[in-house]
């Protein structure tokens, strides 16, 4: 049963990933990527990592991809602007990289003796919110904090980029008489 669900999810993930690369419309690509994210979340659930699955849906499928779609819709990108596919050197480079990745995965799969798939073992140990939180705040505290500092720096950078310059007279906020806020 679990194996069947795994195959369904895995095929779904692979097919939607392929669709993402091959479809010409940016919105279709973005939606395929979202589908891939959802299928991956399903795979996480299958591996008893409920928290990671939920976070995958909230952060990637829910927040980041909405921003992607927002930008695509705001710029109203058409399929005519997708000229990257004509660049043969980049195409070859990407193909080589992809084949190399698949090769590495196959090697690791063969080396491990084909037992990468383990269902339902130690679900209470690592999948729960408590277990992940404990790991994050004890064993992996330093990487966690470094990542958070990195995010803080990114937020500050974004604010500075988006902020209006106060001394610039042209950029001063237009004041509507009688209105405030």
């Amino acid at each position, binding site marked *: 049963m679990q194996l069947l669900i795994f195959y369904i999810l895995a095929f779904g993930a692979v097919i939607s990933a392929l669709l993402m690369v091959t479809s010409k*419309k940016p*919105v279709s690509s973005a*939606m395929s990527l*979202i589908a891939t994210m*959802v299928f991956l*979340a399903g795979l996480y659930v299958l591996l008893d990592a*409920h*928290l990671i*699955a*939920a*976070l995958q*849906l*909230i952060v990637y*499928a*829910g*927040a980041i991809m*909405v*921003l992607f*779609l*927002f930008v695509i*819709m*705001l710029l109203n990108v058409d399929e005519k602007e997708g000229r990257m596919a004509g660049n043969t050197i980049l195409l070859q480079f990407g193909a080589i990289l992809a084949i190399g990745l698949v090769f590495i995965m196959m090697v690791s799969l063969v080396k491990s003796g084909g037992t990468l798939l383990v269902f339902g073992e130690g679900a209470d140990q690592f*999948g*729960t*919110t408590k277990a992940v939180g404990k790991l994050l705040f004890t064993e992996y505290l330093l990487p966690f904090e470094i990542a958070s500092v990195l995010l803080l720096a990114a937020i500050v950078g974004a604010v500075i980029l988006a902020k209006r310059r106060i001394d610039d007279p042209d950029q001063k906020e237009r004041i509507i008489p009688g209105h405030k*806020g």
Partner: protein
Amino acid sequence: MLADMIESIAKILFIFGMNIGFFAPVLGWVERKQSAVMQDRIGANRADIFGFTVIGLFHSIADAIKVLTKEDFIPTGANKFFHTAAPFISLVPAIVTFCVIPFGGRYTLFGHDVNLVISDLDVGLLFIFAFSSLATYGAVLGGWSSNNNWSLIGGLRASAQMLSYEVAMGLTIIGVLMVYGSLKLTEIGVMQENFFRWGIFMQPLGFVLFLTCAIAENKRAPFDVPEAESEIVAGYFTEYSGMKFVMFWMGEFLEIVTISGIVTTLFFGAWHLPFITDQMLLSFFQFAGSNGASILAMLVNIATFFIKVIFFIWMQMTIRWTLPRFRYDQVMKLCWKMILPLSLINIFITGLVFLR
């Protein structure tokens, strides 16, 4: 095994029947009639069967017939696949999210342990957030695929608004999680057995902020800028007709029910009556035998839960028909400049008080 199956199927049927069979059609009527009574009007009362109007309730049936026989219209130049998929994307999360909300406690019936929640997930609350964040795509895609400028503006507004309020909503709920120390909604419910441990007394600010964010996330007035009918026709569902339109509409109503369920579970003692513990309830019904007492206690708890839910539905409807719409920049300012800092302050204070 068989008992488990029967139990889950019964629970699923109950929740689906309650949501799709009862709440979705009745809320359509409630929205019309309540707004009418509130504004000194009469409201829908014309549809009748053999002269009986049942204060306008038959309008739901008339609506259903009308909607099913309407043409399913796809505008020229629209993306057919996404135009068809968008209503489903917005309806399914609204239905699914209710499955982690407990509508009763744990009871022992005929030696079988019954837990009145469809799926008692360890990450219950995050599951709700995850699926409600997926509902954004319904609005965004519906707006984009309609090949209509008003729809596109509505979709853009919906994406920006829902994204912003999702962030704020996640932060408002952290105070509750810190108080009860769990993401499991059943555990949070069990911990509110004592009246003075209800979430509203622990997190009054959190309740106000969460309700605001939840209404904004549901895109209802005063936060209905994505569908602002006086500015952009009907926003992201301008080009929808027939059954697809109703799916957006049902999704909105089911989300009202879900929000009420979450608010009840997190802040208003879930299925508990004030000052009455489960033990007291069981001993009160002792005259019916142990099984009968369990059944009666279960019915009382379910009724309590749904009465609270109905109260919050009524409250959301009142808010919707009381307040005027915010301007779009005001919506954004409210989110990023008021709710977000306030929820951070709420988390900070909660941390000082409870964690010590």
